[in-house]
């Protein structure tokens, strides 16, 4: 009897010690989105915004008035010390287990401290590398308060669903903390982050469907935010922006991405008063790089499958084969122009590439030392780049050649 009691006593030491890391789900405040800003008081520290989910909101038997999310902003040295400071008013124990996204104001992203803040956050075990990195034009605290998704009650779902849209339409780079830190520490090219705003600006007057920065789309209703385009980072600091169109071109020029469903419009080649709409799939992109000369010679070839969605000019591109090949050549030329324009911009303005071409270049070197001596970022601006485009017109929808308008007007 005594032995059994002693055994249970000793065993309870082992079992009970497991309690030091237990958490009670209803005591926890799960931070879904972190926002970072320059400090609103003083010079040092950062303004941290937590969008905290309430796990027990909306559950049967619980207080129905409790909000599903609560947004709290405070000035603190870093996000981790802000946890305890939050408890000066809030009851929940703050954690980052399910943080989906981090929103940073453009002002902070352009400052020198930015990379230090991002990199040092990864020391905390609760921070996960797969959270999305968003850069907001305005203060992150304002952005998070204004982001009220029309269809989703929780920001958690919002970012989960959005990232699936981003993967398809490629209007923003689907970039995570992992991608950002990897690209920055590899020091070979630009890192891209998602660009967004919740304040609408003067709408941009353009015929294009993707050539926007956030806030420029003429849109009413729904939620106030616009997520399109990319913030461009070089050596851990934001140096510029790219429009939705440029992001698309950049992602197509990458070998690995292969965006699947890009709905685009171009001027109709025969009747420029109209636009022609299509859906493109980037089937393959081949990049070959020669590093034997002083400056690299890069050959990029892209393959597209294009489905024609709308021909408002009513010109017969479907059954008329000479028109069809004209359209094909036109698409190839158009795409070539877009790509050359972006490449020129990266070479002259950014002086580094966002296309991950360094992944192809590094194959040509035997040791890391040789590769570092070649310094891809330094040699890229002088690189000679040849682009080839190959378009296949695969579908024209469920209609043959459009009815000739003159016959109707007759």
């Amino acid at each position, binding site marked *: 009897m005594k032995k059994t009691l002693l055994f249970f006593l000793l065993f309870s030491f*082992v079992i009970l*010690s497991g309690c*030091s890391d237990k958490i009670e789900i209803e005591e926890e405040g799960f931070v879904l989105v972190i926002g970072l800003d320059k400090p609103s008081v003083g010079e040092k520290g950062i303004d941290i915004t937590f969008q905290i989910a309430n796990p027990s909101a909306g559950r049967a038997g619980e207080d129905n008035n409790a909000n599903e999310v609560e947004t709290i902003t405070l000035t603190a040295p870093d996000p981790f010390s802000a946890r305890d400071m939050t408890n000066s008013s809030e009851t929940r124990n703050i954690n980052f287990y399910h943080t989906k996204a981090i929103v940073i104001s453009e002002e902070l992203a352009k400052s020198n401290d930015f990379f230090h803040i991002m990199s040092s956050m990864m020391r905390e075990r609760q921070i996960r590398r797969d959270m999305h990195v968003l850069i907001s034009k305005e203060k992150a605290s304002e952005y998070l308060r204004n982001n009220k998704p029309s269809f989703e009650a929780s920001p958690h779902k919002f970012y*989960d669903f959005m990232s699936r849209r981003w993967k398809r339409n490629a209007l923003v780079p689907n970039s995570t903390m992992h991608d950002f830190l990897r690209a920055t*520490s590899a020091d070979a090219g630009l890192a891209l982050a998602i660009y967004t705003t919740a304040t609408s600006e003067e709408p941009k007057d353009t015929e294009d469907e993707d050539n926007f920065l956030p806030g420029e789309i003429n849109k009413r209703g729904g939620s106030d935010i616009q997520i399109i385009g990319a913030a461009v980072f070089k050596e851990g600091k934001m140096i510029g922006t790219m429009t939705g169109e440029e992001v698309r071109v950049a992602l197509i020029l990458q070998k690995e991405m292969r965006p699947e469903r890009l709905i685009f419009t171009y001027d109709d080649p025969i009747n420029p008063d109209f636009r022609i709409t299509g859906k493109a799939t980037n089937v393959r992109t081949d990049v070959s790089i020669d590093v034997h000369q002083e400056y690299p010679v890069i050959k990029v070839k892209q393959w597209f499958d294009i489905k024609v969605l709308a021909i408002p000019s009513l010109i017969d591109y479907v059954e008329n084969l000479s028109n069809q090949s004209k359209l094909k050549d036109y698409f190839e030329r158009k795409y070539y122009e877009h790509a050359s324009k972006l490449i020129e911009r990266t070479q002259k303005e950014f002086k580094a590439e966002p296309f991950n071409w360094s*992944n192809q270049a*590094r*194959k040509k070197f*035997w040791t*890391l030392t040789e590769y570092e001596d070649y310094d891809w970022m330094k040699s890229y601006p002088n690189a000679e780049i040849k682009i080839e485009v190959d378009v296949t017109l695969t579908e024209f929808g469920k209609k043959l050649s459009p009815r000739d308008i003159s016959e109707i007007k007759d």
Partner: protein
Amino acid sequence: MIKPTDRKVGTREFVAIILLSMGIKFTDMTPTLLYKETANAAWMVPILSGLIMFVPLLFLLKLLKFYKDKNLIEIIFSLTGKYVGFLLGMCLFLSSYSSTVTNSRSYVDIISTMFFPNTNIIVLFLLLIGSSYYLANRGLNTIANTAWISLPYIKAFMVIGILMVTNQVNFNYIFPIGGYGALTIIKNSISYSSIFADIMFFSVVFPFFKNYESFRKASLIGYALVIFELVMFLTIYIMYFDFPGIENITYPFQEITRAVRLGRFITNIEAVFLGFWSVASIIRFSIYLYISTAIFAYSLKLKEFEPLLLPFGLLVILLGYLPENFIINSFQIRGPFVLNMTSGFIFSLPILLWSIHKIRGER
């Protein structure tokens, strides 16, 4: 001392022991140490190290074949005499025991850093070494059977983990393939060859194995599989983190399991891997503890060594608690001291013994 009925550990059980004790080295800081030294080429180090350690393994197998029923310590004594034998035995003990201590501390640090930050590390240590002691105390057969039973589950989950991150890796990150150059790779392969030194220690309990044939077969199969496994995981790490990035990831395995997601909704499943990984580490440390104690007891020619397991287990906790933090443990003690010092010793011992055996045999 050893009855024929004790000789139960067969080929498959021994392979399981090798795979679990040596084949989970990629889950601690070993990969980070290697990547720091050799950059993108770290995955080549296990291949070369494996080849280097293969030489003494062959000599050792030859000796074991000749001496049939004797264990390694008895062979040492009969070849080098009482005093030198004792000295060599103690050196062996020190190298195996020191690696038990530093490795167990390193595993406790992993659990503490990645999973249970608020739990006292003494408690974690007690649980890890306590369970290992419990297992070791039942004898080698129990360890072997436990290893064999749990092997499929542990390895299956490792493979699932790998498969689930393959869509997030980029093959190009292993380039430039040479890292810091061929010379650095060779140099580090030599100094880190003790990653595979554990294989020599099993010969201390050689009489427990079924027969020489199954011991030889299992050693070779297990050895090859372990090298393959290490290379595979090191390549996955570099393909996920890329080179300058991996240098400051303390525990790449644990970090990668956080990226694993089953479909769209099942995320944050690293705890599943923690479960299987803990079982593997308990088996690993029970065999370490068992063998270290055996070396000590055989060197002192004690009749029984099982009663020593408990004090030696407690001593692991006491010594393991000494380093202030994991940096001192892994970079100051385990890296340069334990790994590099034992490399030379373990490499030369079988060759030395075999040459003495040849000279004596011809006399």
